[in-house]
């Protein structure tokens, strides 16, 4: 039954940032919570992330970024997702992100930003509430 399929999440590390501890811990927690999780590995260009999201037909993309490039990465990602018709894929993220950048990121279309110290439970719960399987367009 199509609407009972597992929610599929892409956890991605954009750019050159090598800090993958958070991304991997979150990816594993989401997998343990019953979601289908794909982890891109490090050093992905934004185009590569969008391509993977398309091919894997994911319901949400979680971006982990600790390099300070978030104000470039998130808006560019969302723009490129729109261009290929992935408007309804939810984008969330976490990392080293100053508080006053958060409203700007949300305005750009990021659904939620999780800061250091967020519990895995909070993230899992949020995904459960906010990410539903997308309707497959034929």
């Amino acid at each position, binding site marked *: 039954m199509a609407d009972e399929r597992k929610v599929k999440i892409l956890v991605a590390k954009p750019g*050159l*940032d*090598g800090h993958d501890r958070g991304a*991997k*811990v979150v990816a*594993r927690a989401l997998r343990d919570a019953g979601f289908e999780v794909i982890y891109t590995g490090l050093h992905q260009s934004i185009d590569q992330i969008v391509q993977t999201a398309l091919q894997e037909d994911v319901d949400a993309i979680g971006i982990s970024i600790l390099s300070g*490039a978030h104000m*470039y990465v998130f808006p560019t990602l969302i723009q490129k997702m729109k261009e290929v018709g992935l408007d309804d894929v939810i984008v969330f993220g976490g990392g080293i992100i100053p508080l006053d950048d958060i409203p700007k990121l949300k305005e750009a279309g990021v659904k939620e930003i999780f800061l250091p110290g967020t519990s895995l439970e909070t993230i899992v719960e949020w995904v459960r509430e906010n990410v539903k399987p997308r309707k497959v367009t034929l």
Partner: protein
Amino acid sequence: MKEVEKETSMFKEEVLKAIRKEQERWERECLNKEISIHPERKEKFYTMSGIELKRFYTPCDIEGFDYLRDLGFPGEYPFTRGVHTTMYRGRLWTVRQFAGFGTPEQTNKRYKYLLSIGQTGLSMAFDFPTLYGRDSDDPMARGEVGKCGVAVDTLKDFEIIFDGIPMDKITTSMTINPPAFVLLAMYIACAEKQGVSMDRIGGTVQNDMLKEFIAQKTWIYPPEPSLRLVRDIVVFCTKHVPKWNTISISGYHIREAGATAVQELAFTLADGIEYVRMGIKAGLNVDDFAPRYSFFFDSHMDFFEEIAKFRAARRMWAKIMKEWFGAKNPRSWWMRFHTQTAGCSLTAQQPLNNIVRTTIEALAAVLGGTQSLHTNSMDETWALPTEEAVTVATMTQHIIAHESNVASVIDPLAGSFYVEWLTDQMEEKAWEYINKIEEMGGMLEAIKLGYPQKEITESAFRYQQMMENRELIVVGVNEFVLPEYDLPIEILKVDPEVERVQIERLNEVRRKRDNAKVRRLLDDLKDAAKDEKENLMPITIELVREYASIGEICGALKEVFGEYKDPAYF
């Protein structure tokens, strides 16, 4: 496990027997009664690495303890008490704050400020594109230029960064790995322009590629060619740059990626063993290059475990160098190390509390006998530190050095039953890992099997779970949480203009240089790279003198060496 050597043990059998007997009485008469009325806070107590702790320690816990064998004297084998004869009574540790951001001009200004407030050595932080050997105009560099450190494309940037800073008077540590050969070449060429020849410069390149594959994940080429570049630096400096520390064998990143203290210790030493074998294989005499290997550790929040780790590390390295490799020069037995307080222990919540965390960690590093120290700033879970935050972090070191009086006595915790027991524990557990890695054929082979990577991923997950179920309390995060807060501190913002300015400068350099010569030298570099026996340092120095960029040099080698891809274990 150390066997009990009765003759040299400091404790007589009768004394130990009497202590055991008295302790049994105390447990019967006092302890049992007490805990039946007031149970202890937890059923079991552990170190952060998961070593179970007793209530207290007595001579019975270190019954084989042999002062001369296990500790010795400061500056003598096995160096448990410290590598220098007078330690901090002679000279305090070097205050070395890792810094760099934005443009070379901004970084030059920050370095001059740090030197003016009593810092005694520089430590360069580079931005991500530089760390990966890419130019500021590389498509993958978008949004990251100048963000996590200073942007460096060509020698021109180095000339600006060191403008007015005498390179014969300071030492500089550069946190740089795959492109270490390029940055070292730039440092040499820049010093040359100041009239300082390469035999007079002093400093460190991190140049530790093994830990990159294990933990920090800054790589360009596959493991073998990566190690070849490490080797070229070691061989070149051994012959021409005698005051340069050629590898900073780093546990810091291994720990920050989630390893326990025991894993940090074990994997770092296993990396060190691999690098010693590499030098020997390159035809060098062990006593000619080993004294120029230094180490870099993390100092986390479990105070005594960290101190025990530092003491065990020195003793283990001394044994490895003397007994395994037969080094004769006492300086080869030395483990000199830099310490940074644990970035991953800091919290975004209630950031002022981070000053306290950093102080505790810094104190552990000093009691553990570090040679240099970086103290993190309170605001680093939010962004790069502001000048004010860096000042507090720097002054923390001065307060420990000058006000606490801990620097007056060498290795002051030696002889504590607990600290000696824990030092033995760290050593014993680290040897177990090292032996396992040796069975795999050494660290390079272990990395190819994904062994240390998977171990760390496991530990990182376990650590997070311990926080989730509150076995591990972090103030402000899972206990003593304050509702809604305003961030009480200023945050540093790197101007996005940096990217444009940097690309403009790079283009200008490219217009002005002798491009035909650069192209010819790049071809020579590729040819040299194809011959495994060639040392790539001399030609790289020539290239940077001609203002070839880091991206051009590293890019040329990609054509020969290929690129490494993340195996993405999670």
